[in-house]
């Protein structure tokens, strides 16, 4: 019950959240798996050098973490959402450490659309809004490229219409 009331904090009234593509979860899972498996290499080398198979067990905690991350990533991605309101853009993310960023369109200095090789393969891109503040972290990952470009253009035109000085 408490959690219910709590969710209201990150769920302002009358806001329709748009979720990002679940393909982002796949991309992140791959990244996380690669990151953890790299740590397997020294364990294997050590096991071969010492000729003690149990050295491999040292990797087990990492493996456990990997499994946990794989499970969590799905929920983390599901928690990412954005909403275009009349005057500002809302971006929310995070399960454990949650953030909700409000960026007025008139404050936008520029918009980035970026996609790495794996992102491109899975057909997603990242849109990032920049204001004059370095603290603004309004990043929307996992958008289909066409959506990302549409969003970018829409944000840019809205920013222009509501342009304010610093």
């Amino acid at each position, binding site marked *: 019950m*408490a959690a219910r009331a*709590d969710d*209201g*904090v*990150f769920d*302002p009234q009358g806001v329709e959240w748009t979720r990002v593509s679940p393909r982002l979860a796949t991309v992140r899972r791959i990244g996380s798996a690669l990151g953890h498996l790299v740590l397997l290499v020294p364990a294997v080398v050590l096991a071969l050098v010492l000729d003690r198979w149990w050295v491999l067990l040292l990797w087990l905690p990492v493996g456990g973490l990997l499994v946990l991350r794989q499970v969590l990533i799905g929920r983390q991605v599901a928690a990412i959402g954005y909403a275009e309101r009349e*005057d*500002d853009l809302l971006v929310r993310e995070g399960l*454990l*450490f*949650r*953030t*909700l*960023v*409000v*960026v*007025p369109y*008139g*404050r936008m200095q520029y918009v980035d659309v970026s996609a790495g090789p794996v992102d491109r393969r899975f057909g997603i891109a990242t849109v990032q809004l920049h*204001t*004059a*503040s*370095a*603290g*603004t*972290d*309004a990043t929307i990952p996992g958008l289909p490229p066409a959506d990302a470009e549409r969003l970018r253009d829409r944000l840019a035109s809205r920013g222009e*219409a*509501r*342009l*304010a*000085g*610093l």
Partner: protein
Amino acid sequence: MSDRPGEPAGPAGARGEGARADELPDEVAAAAGQGVPDPEPAPEADGTWKRMHPVTPLVRGWAVLAVLLFFVVQQRGESFFSGGGPDAGDTGDQPFARIQLLVSLGLLGVGVLAVAAWAYLSWRATRYRVGEEAVELRSGVLFRQHRRVRLDRLQAVDVVQPLVARLTGLSELKLEVAGGAGSDVSLAYLRSSEAQRLRRTLLARAAGVGVDEAGEAPEAPEREVLQVPVDRLVLSMARSVWPVVGAVVVVALVVVVVVTGEPGIGLALVPGVFGVAAGVWGAFARGFGFRIAASPDGLRLRHGLTETRAQTVPPGRVQAVRLQQPLLWRGPDWWSMEMDVAGYAGGASDDAGKETVLLPVGTRAEAVEVLSLLLPDPGCEDPAGVLGAGLTGTGREHGWVDAPRSARWLDPVAWRRNGYRVTRTALLARRGRLVRQLDVVPHERTQSLALEQGPLQRRLGLATVVAHTTPGPVSPRADHLAAADAAGLLAEQARRARAARRSAGPELWMTTLAEQAREARDGAPAATGTPAAVGAPGAPGEPVRADAGAPGEPVRADAGAPGQDAPSSPVSPSEPSWREDAP
């Protein structure tokens, strides 16, 4: 001796480079200069390309010269030693040493020449032009750069005089624009009178006030607000953390030396002592002679012992202010102030901390005075009480919203202080029990907002609200609020920032001020030079009026409208003010 074979390569290379550089500029200039009339510096009139003062290379390069001189002296000293030392008994070495000396001196001469040639070329390649709407700077010998800064984007104008420049009567004029590191335009060095004239002209043009044909703008009248006395500066530093650090270091040193009986250990700490001394000296030299003056073209800050700096921050360019009181300043009730200005934080690293100090140390009354210059309209009832509660208070008095009791688990010391207060014009956030802090952000300067919640906060029903401002020392946040309060603040703040932006002052802030000045001249000439002059419509404090300004783009000159309907309202005595004595 061993490095001799390697030596000739360096200067020869330098010479080669110098020669190449000699030919290059004209080609490049020809390639780059299409459309630009040949930049022969014509004297006086603005709008033509001009060069920096001819002494510039010397002022810039004195350090290089000093280093070279040092090497010469060192070389000579060494050769004296090798010549007259006890090992010089072998006479066969003598001519060899002489040749070595000659060679090294020759190389040095070539090096000096190369450096001088480079400095000359770089001076020749650096030109600036002051136009109606922009300042342009061309620089670079091999890699050319042409930078154009729009005057309506000017964030601040500084006149900086390092010691050597002061001795030669030169100044550096720095035009700060928002845009990260190295985005400023630095005109170094100009004759001091020329730097002052340019500063006046640029500020006038940036403000939208016309200047006469000769490009002369009258010096804006200024009113001195306060001076920081030297004794207070020294005392404030004595009451800071430095003496404590110093005492701890000395005691630790003595203990270690006594216990181990080896004074050599003490030597290891010498660099640390030097570091502390440099820090103390730096703080003293920066704060020395700190003066604040108010003028229509902005807040004027002047300070510095060896290197003097005169900053002009136009109204509305201060993005956020922090008032701070360390523990030991409580007795005399002193406060220091820092500010975020979009042009400043991105500057060169050696300027870090020099530009963003708004007040190194001042009494509470002085701090409040400075605050009311920047934000003339508090936008709330009983502003003095609100401010007092923000500076030293706890709890929910004067409309402050504090953190709930559960916050004590996350911030056991200062949770009672954490809180925020939203007025019609600004967001105030307070924190810190040992070191008290109060951040003030005008609504129309808020860039974006964030709501944050970690797992513990979630458990305790808390959340943190962060207001993002331009980079700088002030990063306003209200920690560990009740979740509902935080969400409410976020929604409220987004709404207020939106409203405030719509009615924000014009970018050419003087268009409204000029109106006022004209009225003042025709009617009552007394108005200039009063606090009224700084406050003024362009400043952050412009009250939120639903009907003020055009909703969309508030930039153009016709936005003078809000100033006209109430030219004196932000400053008339009946308006509330942060000051205690205000009604």
